[in-house]
């Protein structure tokens, strides 16, 4: 009586598709900015109001721009990994959005500061130019100032290996990324 096996067969086919679909990335929203030069911006630093973080700061080497805020719970989840990357030598710039300066400084003091410097954007104006829809978001910027990749949601080692490392290997010139060996490890 083979017909009683038909429902099981249908179920297995659908289940197979689900299994194959598990690796899909639901956060993959092709950003119109990818492949274009990073927006021009100039912001005071969070920790030192007199110094400035700007488009010029990013030029000349491959870097990450990470959007964060103390109000963002998910940012907490990725913070440890950012600190690890920074320790391995990866240059990370912060874009602190809609935040309170004192709270932001306190956050960096307690949880560690992975950022070479963080731009302070209390009204979220620069964030709008960057097409930021929420936090955390992380951009990979090429040494010529082009946005190579945009990731929405916390940056995890898995995401790093899957989406960022291949792009880094592809886009790093012989001298651009002295940190590549350190951040490429497991």
């Amino acid at each position, binding site marked *: 009586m083979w017909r009683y096996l038909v*429902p*099981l067969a249908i*179920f297995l086919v659908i289940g197979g*598709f*689900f299994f194959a*679909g598990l690796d899909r990335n*639901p956060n993959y929203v092709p950003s119109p900015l990818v492949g274009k030069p990073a927006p021009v911006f100039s912001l005071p630093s969070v920790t030192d109001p007199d110094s400035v973080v700007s488009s010029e700061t990013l030029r000349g080497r491959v870097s990450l721009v990470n959007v964060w805020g103390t*109000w963002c*719970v998910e940012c*907490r989840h990725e913070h440890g990994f950012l600190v690890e990357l920074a320790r391995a030598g990866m240059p990370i710039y912060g874009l602190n959005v809609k935040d309170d300066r004192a709270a932001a400084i306190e956050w960096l003091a307690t949880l560690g500061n992975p950022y070479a410097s963080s731009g302070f954007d209390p009204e979220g104006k620069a964030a709008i130019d960057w097409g930021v829809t929420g936090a955390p978001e992380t951009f990979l910027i090429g040494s010529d100032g082009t946005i190579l990749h945009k990731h929405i949601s916390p940056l995890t080692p898995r995401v790093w290996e899957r989406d960022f490392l291949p792009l880094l290997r592809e886009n790093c010139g012989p001298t651009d990324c002295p940190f590549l060996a350190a951040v490429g490890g497991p």
Partner: protein
Amino acid sequence: MIPEFGQLALALALCLALVQATVPLFGAARGRADWMALARPAAAGQFVFVAIAFGALEYALLTDDFSVSFVASHSNSALPDFYKATAAWGGHEGSMLLWITVLAVWTMAVAAGSRSQPQEFASRVLGVLGIVSAGIIAFALLTSNPFTRLIPAPADGNDLNPLLQDPGMIIHPPTLYLGYVGVAVPFAFAVAALLTGRLDKDWARWTRPWTIVAWMFLTAGITLGSWWAYYELGWGGWWFWDPVENSSFMPWLMTTALLHSLAVTERRGIFKSWTVLLAIAAFSLSLFGTFLTRSPVMISVHAFAADPTRGLFILGLLGLFSGGALALYAARARNFEAEGGFKLVSREAFLLANNLLLVIAAGVVLVGTLAPLFVDVLGFGTISVGPPYFNLMFLVPVLPLVVLLGMGMHVAWRSMPGDALLRRLRWPAAAAVVVGIAAPLIFFGTASVLTVLAISIALWVCASSLLDPVRRLVFRTGAPLTRGQVGMYLAHFGVGVFMLGATVASAYKVELDVSARPGDTVTAGGYEFVFKDVRKLEGPNFVADEGEFELRDAGTLVAVLTPQIRTYQVQREPMTEAAIDTNVVRDVFVALGEPLGDNAWSLRLQVKPLIGFLWLGSGLMVLGGLFAITDRRYRAAVRQTQQAAAQPATGTA
């Protein structure tokens, strides 16, 4: 400490669920009454510990314990207490705990309600429910623990998604979950029947009331969700064919098919293996809904934090529950023999058609929902399947389904002469067609062929459902109606009312997007909207712009409408609170949009005729279910149970 107690209670509940999942099933296989007798105490203990865990989460939410990650992510100290409590199901981890709690409630109800059934059967049912419960609790503890701490604790929480800060959201998820999870009960009955190898009319009589109750909650839950989307999302739509909406609608279609198939099995002892298959399919689709919202497979406005580990775990559970049940089905279903036959014009034949068409309808929704996944996995790129596909394809099985429904109610079991059926139904049919053509032309002036067809079919079901009740109540002829029959007529009348509302509201809605300044008057759908003013307003955790509109009909004031656009302080997302003036025949809907500068605002004005019939029709379906489960034959079973419970010593002998 309280969250740790909650976690401990959940772990203990898992242990008891494992006992409930194994010992009674082995006992039933070996014929050991003492092992089987463990099912009920294990279920009761599990219920107690699950309730403690749920209470612990509520405690953490109400006391603003932001050291608990879930609380920090989904609540805020400024949130009204009401929404703090309901934030428990505003995120993935808490909603899994709600799922578990609801299953524990159902298990307790089954444990209490199955005392008149043979011990071997009842302990198998509880054992299967134990397997389901153990799987889901393990999932929660291992991948989505609601009690995980966050150190250092943030000063305040991230707040509940503003969309969920709404009274509709307080009852929609628990109601829907009662339905979703309730489908596990007919599933457990079906698997128990496969294990026992016996499936008779008694089995169908035990299973049917549970199925109807789960179906009532599903119906109510889906309707509440649709109602919530209608007034909260601010777009004025009520169904979007979103993957998550679909994943609650597919179990509904399957459960509807199941309760009709159960009617045949209960009455005639046929359709047995088909009924079992439907029960398995309904629960599989309900689990599939859980999978869909918690894995990266689908993108949806409803989706919880997607995580491949969680997706893999749920997929494993789906494989264990559904795959296991279907394998058992393949091995055992042939043992269920039909106890009789039927002719082409008979209640059985119509219910068979009902089942096939409902399953096709569910298939249409399934294909539309999964097509993007299939196409992507097969490497053909990304596609999206939208309302045009669903709106059209769904009608293909549903229009004939509803036409046949009007006839099926009046067909006798076994066989009936075709001309007797036609004689009985020709007047309601003729009346429905005449009114279906005339009414839209009189009230709205225009009508497309599809609109006339759909309205006629809806009126046909209404008329056909009223035939017997009117005969009985007005003309005092025919046999008295049982509660089961009253339930059937009410629910089917509700189907007609719903369809009428859906058709008229879609075909004759008036929608206008305009920009206007205070002082302007806009005319839409025969009404004048006088834009008086916009003012600032402060709520407990939001600030709002509130517009004031006078709704006038030929100069006479009908209502003052005050739509708001809210900005919640923590999440800073603008939220539309539409203002709706409702009466029996139409809704007038005003939503305030963006400020356009220079004191101008974008407005969305809508007039929706008969949209209230959607909620009314669904309400009638639920009421019909209520009548059906209070039918005498089920009440007799309850009395039997109570007697058995009163004399436990002799009851099990």
